[in-house]
């Protein structure tokens, strides 16, 4: 596994994610933001709840499809339970406060050239880097 190989996988996977986000706008006229779709399922009943549910069901099925054709999917989750709870709370609270996550701001908003999404992307990248760097110290 060298960096060029991983970069090719990242760009190819990213292009598929971009295709999904692009088709979601072309077909449905909506922004493909995972946090908003999850929030739409667990909050007050959204008018598009069927579409939201189908897209979210498609996520694991798409990954299983990739594994079924021989793709390597073996996520390593090292965080202890307390970190999973704290991290999950921060991700849920933070993405709702800023109205977007890696897909909504990072892909879709930036593709719309939204200044808000550019600012949000810079902020969550920097915070993520800071969290990992601080984690190295403790």
């Amino acid at each position, binding site marked *: 596994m060298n960096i060029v190989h991983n970069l090719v996988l990242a760009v190819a996977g990213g292009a598929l994610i971009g295709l999904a986000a*692009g088709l979601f706008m072309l077909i449905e*006229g909506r922004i493909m933001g995972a946090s908003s779709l999850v929030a739409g399922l667990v909050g007050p009943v959204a008018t598009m709840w069927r579409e939201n549910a189908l897209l979210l069901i498609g996520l694991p099925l798409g990954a299983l499809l990739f594994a079924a054709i021989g793709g390597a999917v073996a996520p390593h989750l090292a965080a202890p339970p307390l970190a999973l709870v704290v991290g999950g709370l921060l991700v849920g609270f933070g993405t709702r406060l800023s109205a977007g996550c890696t897909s909504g701001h990072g892909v879709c908003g930036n593709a719309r050239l939204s200044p808000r999404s550019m600012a949000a992307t810079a902020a969550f990248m920097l915070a993520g880097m800071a969290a990992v760097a601080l984690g190295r110290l403790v």
Partner: protein
Amino acid sequence: MNANPLRLVGALGCGLLFGFGLALSRMVDPAVVRGFLDVTGDWDPSLAGVMAGAIPVTFVFYRIAARRGRALAGGALPPAPERTIDRRLVGGALLFGIGWGLVGLCPAPALIAWLFQPWALLFIAAMVAGMAIQRRVLREPVADPACG
């Protein structure tokens, strides 16, 4: 709102592509994500390719959609993005980033990772709780005029 078959098939298809792309790009692996964020240590910048691969494709499709003016399944396109960068936006993104770095999961990959790492279900439950808490604490989705 009636169920429009094109909307339903489109949503499932987009989810499949999204999930396939996340798996292919290795974004579903928290260790890879944390390696990408580990700029002061054992940095693996390869995940930068995800956004580099995604944004141009999405940009082109958004242009095509804007030229059409309406969604293929009917319905209007979203209004132009707001431009106000306030404390809620930046503060929320910072909190999200801390959680992302702590665990290595963001919302979409988390919904995949649990299939392979059942402990990710705990993260998903906490994430949904965090969303519910946000709705409780800040019921009005209106930015404080004193902010930003």
